[in-house]
Structure formats: C-alpha cells, structure tokens
C-alpha cells in the first residue's frame, strides 16, 4: 500500500483538519467531532445533513455549503459514523426549522442515523430522513429491497439542498425526497479494488484484463466479472441495465451523472461520457443535465458509475442548476 498518509488510524481526523484549514471561510469543524458544518448557517432554513463512512471524498464534506448540505458527519473509512456524532450534528445544524437526514441504504448507516434521530426527537428537534438506494446492480425485478446507496446520493443532496435554500419546509423536503429517489438509478463498473488504509491491501483484486460490473462503493460484490471491454461496450452494458429498470421512454428528460470512483482519470471519464451521451441520444432520451467527475469515490478504486435521473418535474432540473457554494459540486 502506497498512500500519502501518516498513521492510517489518523487519516479521517487529519483529512478533516486539512479540509477545514483549506476552506476557513466556508467550513468549520464542530468541536471534538468529525462533523464538517457550514460556517454561516442558513437562518430559518431546514438543515440538510448527510454523512457516512469516509473514503468517498469529495462526498460528503465537499458538498457542505450554501444551497446544498448544512453539515456532513464523517465516519471512519467505510464505516458509518456513530449515533452520538450524528446527534451532535443534528443539534448544531438545527435552526429551528428541523433537520433532514440523507441516509444511504447500508445497515450501518441506517441504524446509526436512526438512533441519532431518536435521540434528537427526544430533545424536541424535528427530524425526518430519506434512504437513498439508487444502485440497481443487485436488484432484480421481484425484490427491490436491499439496493445500495451510491453516487445518486449527490443528486439528492443537490436537489434537497436547493429546495431548503429556497425555503421549503421539512415536510416539503421529505415529500420531494420521496418523489426524486425512485427516479434516480445508478450502476457502476470497477477496474480495481479499493484499499482501506487500515487494511493495507485491496478489498478485491481483478486480473490485468478483468473488470467487475456492479461493484459497490465499498467494494461490495457486483453482478459479473468479465474481460476488459471498450468504453463503448461498457456504456452499452450499463445503459441496458438502466434502460430495463426505468424503463426508457422516448423524449423523456434525464439528468446524467458520470462519477469517477477515485483512480480513473478525467480523460477517461470524458471518453466514457461521450459514449454514454451518444447512446442515450440513440435511445431518444432528452438529456437536460450532465455532470462528470469524482463525486462519490471509493478511495482509490478505478472505475466509474453511471447515474440517470428521470426528470419528471422541471423544478428538479431548476434545483440541479440552482447556485451553490461548495468545494466540490
């Protein structure tokens, strides 16, 4: 393992220090915590909190700022933060309008966030939440339970954050989340495993000419291993999965997020973008929004994920384009 770090067990703490020190006007750390919070909290706005294990940078702290997240709770690498941390974030972020939690569909995240929610509600703070489960990799038509939450979460942050910024209530944000999440679907392909610093070796190893479809952002197993394919072919495979799940209808509006998993250069991501957008055109979809880059990474994993969001309501698109002040959007 060749990493630019000091002690593996200090990595999250030092990363947060580095992040805050480099953005002193935008962000601060809640004292004695692993919480990154906006410096100037929105007054009378619903706070949006996200978080989860670290190792997905710039998620989630990179999306803290006006128009997006109020705070991000950073767990250890690939490990959900603990309830007390999340509770602390809720208390600090609440401006009286309530707090909305964006949770990804992992046992750990759900349990820890829900315990924190219980704690906050006992103190009279209004808290609501949504669970993002956009990864269709291991879905099948009969059972939709158990999908993972991956890169689509970024779109949820953006849309809910813009809604909050524009004064939506906690109930409205909850309703909005219920409408958008079923319209966001993601599928990825890994070119390599990720190395958790404390483990020191990759979670899984692929041969030099091998890829794996549907790997999760923590290296969870995907649905198939195969020989390396061209970008065109990979775009086709991932789009065909998404097509079946939505399913596609001509002229429907879609937002596209192409997300690098960490070690795949932007150059390759744009080559892939080119193939994706061409093929979506062939499908006669109307792509109204595209974003490309490393947003929800898996430490140093090579590969990409493709997220499509069906834009059913023009307000969603407006929210995606709503101005924002964050490090990473």
């Amino acid at each position, binding site marked *: 393992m060749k990493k630019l770090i000091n002690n593996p067990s200090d990595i999250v703490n030092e990363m947060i220090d580095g992040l805050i020190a480099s953005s002193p006007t935008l962000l601060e750390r809640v004292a004695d915590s692993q919480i990154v919070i906006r410096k100037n909290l929105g007054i009378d706005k619903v706070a949006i909190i996200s978080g989860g294990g670290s190792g997905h940078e710039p998620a989630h702290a990179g999306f803290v700022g006006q128009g997006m997240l109020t705070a991000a709770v950073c767990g250890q690498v690939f*490990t959900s933060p603990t309830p*007390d941390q999340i509770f602390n974030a809720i208390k600090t972020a609440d401006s009286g309008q309530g707090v909305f939690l964006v949770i990804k569909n992992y046992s750990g995240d759900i349990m820890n966030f829900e315990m924190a929610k219980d704690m906050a509600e006992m103190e009279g703070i209004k808290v609501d939440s949504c669970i993002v489960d956009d990864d269709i990799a291991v879905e099948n038509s009969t059972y939709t339970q*158990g999908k993972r939450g991956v890169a689509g979460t970024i779109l949820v942050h953006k849309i809910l954050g813009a809604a909050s910024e524009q004064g939506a209530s906690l109930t409205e944000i909850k309703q909005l989340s219920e409408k958008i999440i079923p319209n966001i679907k993601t599928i990825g392909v890994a070119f390599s495993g990720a190395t958790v610093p404390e483990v020191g070796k990759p979670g899984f190893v692929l041969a030099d000419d091998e890829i794996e479809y549907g790997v999760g952002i923590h290296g969870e197993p995907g649905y198939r291993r195969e020989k390396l394919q061209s970008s065109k072919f990979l775009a086709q495979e991932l789009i065909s999965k998404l097509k079946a799940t939505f399913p596609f209808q001509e002229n429907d509006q879609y937002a596209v997020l192409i997300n690098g998993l960490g070690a795949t250069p932007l150059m390759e991501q744009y080559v892939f973008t080119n193939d994706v957008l061409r093929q979506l055109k062939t499908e006669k979809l109307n792509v109204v929004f595209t974003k490309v880059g490393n947003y929800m990474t898996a430490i140093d994993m090579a590969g990409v994920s493709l997220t499509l969001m069906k834009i059913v309501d023009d307000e969603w698109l407006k929210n995606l384009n709503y101005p924002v002040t964050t490090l990473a959007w």
Partner: protein
Amino acid sequence: MCALMLNKSYFIETFKKLAAMAEENRDHLSKLDSDIGDGDHGINLTIGFREVEKQLPQLSESVTDIAELMKKVGMILLSKVGGASGPLYGSFFMKMATHIIGKQEVTFKEFCQMYQDGVEAVQMRGKAELNDKTMLDALIPGLAILKDYQEGDDPINTLENCVNEMKLGSDKTIPLMAKKGRALRLGERAVGHRDPGSESAWMIMNVFLQQLKTIS
C-alpha cells in the same frame, strides 16, 4: 456442588479476553469482510474492544452491578465503532442488562436470558432475518440451545453446544445468496464466502465459554 454464579469479575475478565480475541482475529475478520463487504469488520471490532479494555479498570471500580457494566460496554461499542457492528454489538451488550438490573451475580439460567435479550436487540435493531447472511445466522441457532437450558444441565456443556451451533450457523452463511435482504444486496460474488459477523458472533460467545471453563 453449589450452583454456578457469574459475578462481575467473570464479565470483566471476559471483556479483557474479548479485546485480545478481537486483536488476534482482526485480519481474519477483515479478510472475510473484504470478500463480501468493505473489509473493516476486524478493524471495527478492535476499535470497539480496545476502547472497552481501556475503560475497564475505571469501569470495574465505578459500576455498581453487572447490568450497569453491560450497558456501559454496549454504550462504548455504540459510540466508538460505528458501521453495522457498532449499533448491533452495542445493542447486544446493552440489552443484556434488561432482566438483571441491580444484580451483583447471575445464574447461568439468567445468563441464558441475557443472551436472549441481546439477540432480540440485534434482531430489532437490524431488522434482518435468518438466512440474510448476517450475524443472526449464528446468533439465532445459539439461542435455540440456551433457551433449552434447564436448571441442572451442565452450563459448560450447554454453552459449548451453543457455540457449536453458532459455528454451524456461520458455516451455513457460506453458500448463501438469498433472494432478499442483505444477502441479496451482496450479489453473486458473496456466494461461497462466510459472513464475517456470523464468525465474530460465535467467537465472542466462545470467549464467554472459555472464561466459564476457567471458573468452573
């Protein structure tokens, strides 16, 4: 032969050994987790049990009864570990306190109840079922044995049976690729791999067993 009683120091010694067990099996458990998860289960447990061990000297002074000890240990796991195992093992130990409030020592029958309360807490917290490829696949078969314990049965024998059943339950997670719950989410690559939580679960109960042997 007088009835076996488990006192505070039984539990304190057990927690010490749990810390050592976690340390020893750190890489093994993480390896299992790499195969089907995110590769940190061993790390999570050592983070938790190291902290428990660190606070034990102070705890063993301050807690007034076993229930309080279990709650405190559970709280430490809950607030230090994170991930899935934090709230699960945290709840497991915390809820063990349910029926033994104020007790300085517990009978083995009461210990069986503690285990039951712990397992039920894990089930409530995680909402998983048997064959979801989780620690419950070890915890639940073990529970069947301890529920059957009768006054007069040999505690060591019983707990040994329990740990063996847990091991078997863990073995059964290997071929699992269920059509629902967590196992589904894990996908095909998980088939042929043991669930790490089911492994740590029997290992934890095995430490209780080994400690029991030393005092009987």
